[in-house]
């Protein structure tokens, strides 16, 4: 290793080998049985618990925590999975601080919610380690359903359909199933190949075939799917990335944060990944935080997130922002990129200060410049590749149409979260089941 955090340009191997191991280890290690018991003891077993209401998949949280507390984490896992078949990854990536744990009455009582996410991980880890898959298929119905997209929505939909006895084929454009669980989450949140393990575990239900490398509009068409299958579910996510529309966007060193995150997730050795010395991430969501933190963990000297509005408007939660700050990432609010400077490759970004008024965002004449040999764009994803025949609302697929159902990030309604996608996939499967059985 000859490079260091001070090496100019975009280079790999800025850190000693053991630093990479440390940096990309499980960022929130699992609870051990003692810790789980102590954490479980804190649950009050609320009536009509607010945490359940706050969970997009409505997991019966007090029940599963009580099951952990009484020494039956396997039963707890079943409680979780019966509502959320991807409860393992959700335990790792859910912004619990804005969902169940925000609603926890102990957050109101003493500012320290029950550690619901970590308890959920404990239960699902224990049960998965024991090889339990506590669901079986109903009698075969003879119905066939196509699911497009093997992300959280598609997988949840497929599993529920398979449970009801339908046969499912999932079409996935990427080489692996998992969607954003596999390609779109910071490495330290899903270590040890967990996303793939969970997919493999989920497929134990049987009756689900996954065909990878199959893209809607390229390899398959909606018309063909609707004629070949009894129903179709689209969980195609948001494949497009918003452009900055700032001068210099095409300079070398400027790229989409989602591509960087995906590349990092798929890398067998993160030390080989090149990273800039001065990294600027533009955006204010989870993707921006994941890209920025991981840039720092790869050895970038300076990493700055720049967001055009105030802190309270950032879609990354307070917890995520704190996590970034703790990792050494600087967050600048109320500044928008004017242009990227550089000769062939990026060298700096010029920003204008903004003010967020009743008439929207206005840029001030005053600007500042940040050194940047690498710039990540994380200003949101958009729906692309959706069949033009489907109704669209607010840039997303509006809802079911005939025998075509939609869910996940590509569909209108709900936040763009893994857990929301799971809920939508599951609920679509239930609605499809009713429709299929009425045929």
């Amino acid at each position, binding site marked *: 290793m000859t490079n260091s955090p001070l090496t100019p340009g975009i280079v790999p191997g800025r850190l000693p080998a053991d630093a990479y191991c440390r940096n990309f280890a499980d960022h929130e290690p699992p609870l051990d049985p003692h810790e789980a018991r102590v954490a479980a003891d804190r649950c*009050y077993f*609320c*009536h009509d618990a607010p945490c359940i209401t706050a969970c997009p998949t409505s997991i019966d949280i007090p029940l599963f925590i009580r099951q952990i507390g009484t020494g039956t984490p396997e039963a707890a896992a079943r409680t979780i999975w019966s509502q959320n078949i991807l409860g393992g990854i959700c335990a790792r990536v859910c912004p619990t601080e804005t969902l169940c744990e925000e609603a926890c009455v102990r957050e*109101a*009582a003493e500012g320290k919610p029950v550690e619901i996410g970590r308890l959920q991980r404990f239960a699902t880890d224990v049960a998965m380690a024991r090889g339990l898959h506590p669901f079986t298929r109903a009698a075969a119905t003879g119905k066939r359903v196509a699911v497009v997209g093997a992300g959280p929505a598609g997988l949840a939909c497929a599993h529920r359909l398979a449970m009801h006895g339908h046969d499912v084929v999932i079409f996935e454009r990427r080489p692996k199933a998992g969607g954003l669980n596999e390609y779109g989450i910071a490495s330290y949140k899903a270590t040890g190949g967990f996303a793939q393990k969970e997919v493999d575990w989920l497929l134990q239900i049987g009756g689900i075939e996954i065909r990878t490398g199959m893209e809607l509009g390229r390899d398959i068409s909606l018309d063909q799917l609707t004629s070949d299958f009894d129903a179709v579910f689209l969980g195609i996510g948001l494949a497009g990335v918003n452009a900055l529309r700032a001068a210099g966007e095409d300079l070398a060193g400027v790229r989409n944060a989602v591509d960087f995150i995906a590349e990092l997730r798929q890398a067998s050795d993160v030390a080989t990944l090149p990273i800039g010395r001065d990294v600027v991430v533009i955006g204010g969501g989870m993707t921006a935080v994941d890209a920025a933190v991981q840039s720092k963990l790869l050895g970038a000297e300076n990493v700055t997130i720049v967001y055009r509005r105030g802190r309270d408007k950032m879609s990354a939660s307070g917890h995520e922002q704190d996590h970034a700050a703790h990792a050494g990432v600087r967050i600048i609010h109320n500044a928008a990129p004017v242009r990227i400077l550089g000769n062939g490759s990026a060298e700096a970004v010029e920003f204008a200060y903004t003010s967020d008024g009743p008439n929207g965002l206005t840029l001030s004449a005053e600007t500042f410049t940040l050194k940047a040999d690498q710039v990540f764009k994380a200003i949101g994803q958009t729906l692309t590749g959706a069949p033009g025949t489907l109704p669209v609302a607010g840039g997303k697929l509006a809802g079911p149409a005939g025998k075509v159902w939609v869910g996940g990030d590509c569909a209108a309604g709900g936040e763009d979260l893994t857990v929301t996608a799971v809920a939508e996939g599951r609920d679509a499967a239930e609605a499809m089941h009713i429709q299929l059985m009425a045929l």
Partner: protein
Amino acid sequence: MADLSSNFIGIKSPNPFWLASAPPTDKQYNVERAYQAGWGGVVWKTLGAEGPPIVNVNGPRYGAIWGADRRLLGLNNIELITDRPLEVNLREIKEVKRKWRDRALVISLMVPCDEESWKAILSQIEDTEADGVELNFGCPHGMAERGMGSAVGQVPEYIEMVTRWVKQYSRMPCIVKLTPNVTSILPPALAANRGGADAVSLINTVKSITNVDLDHFSPFPMIDGKGSHGGYCGPAVKPIALNMVAEIARHQETRGLPISGIGGVTTWRDAAEFMALGAGNVQVCTAAMTYGFKIVQEMISGLSQYLDEKEMAMTDLVGRAVPNFVEWQHLNLNYVTKAQIDQDLCISCGRCYAACEDTSHQAIAMSADRVFTVKDDECVACNLCVDVCPVDNCITMRELPKGSVDPRTGKVVGDFADWTTHPNNPMAQAAE
């Protein structure tokens, strides 16, 4: 600082906190550590008759139940009386007493139920200079099957008989330790009183099985696949002990008989409660076994602060709650209260609602945004909501003033009236 020095039946100690006869007081080493930590006195672990020492099991002796965070709530044991030679115990007792003159040292005794055995042991301990004796008529396990411990304590005639022997053959103050494994604590207490006991101490442990090993199908503690009942103690038995202490304290024949309160004393507050119900001092075991001897320091500071704040002497506290311990029929039926929920303190867990709606009187309303309010026209003031609420003082009971109308019954809250004069009581005596 309030004066905590104690004089219990002539036995002086710097504070009213004694260690009960139990494993913590089995030998000089432990007892001296206890004194160093600040304990006012100890009752040395029960001595038996001279002869081959007692044997104990070589597997687990204790079982337990736990609350949240594995907090020990109840402990059960199958340990017997001291398993060390009598002469070793006597030598150590003498040495300790000479070294710690200001501390109380009482010897617990359990020998077969015959006059000669008691006469013999009393003469053997005479030379130790110990402050008194406590007669162990309480242990419910192991020794009881041999006709000692609770086997004696369950027969008032035996209690009286042995107590008389002890008073006859010894000049030492005599405390009779009672077993709770009886249908009423009064006959044993009355018997001790008749026998001339200087005091009673209670409660000894409660016959119990704490849990069952669900893999081996044996009660726990499990000895080679089998279990026997043990004696239960710790915070879980405190309510049983308080009632028994209070029953003795208020009974016309035992009123004034000094009581050493035992049973789940864990904090100064527990001790103060025992004293308020008539105990002149308290004895502690499980709390020390759970947390070590240092806990006495909190007991001392807490009781002292409490007495200072109340401007009371310790003697003012002893028995102060006894006159207010009455039979149900004397409770004021015209005392009407309603639960009220402090919305600022409420954390909206809804446990009060679940408890009331599912298991009580459907007297709590829940709004769509999780605001919980009491329906005065349904509330019978049972207090269950207060008990299940996780926040201290969030739900309290508000007394309806005299002359106001109880929305539940439509009746005006009147003057004191209890069951003895209630029209529904066939035995009611008309007010004259």
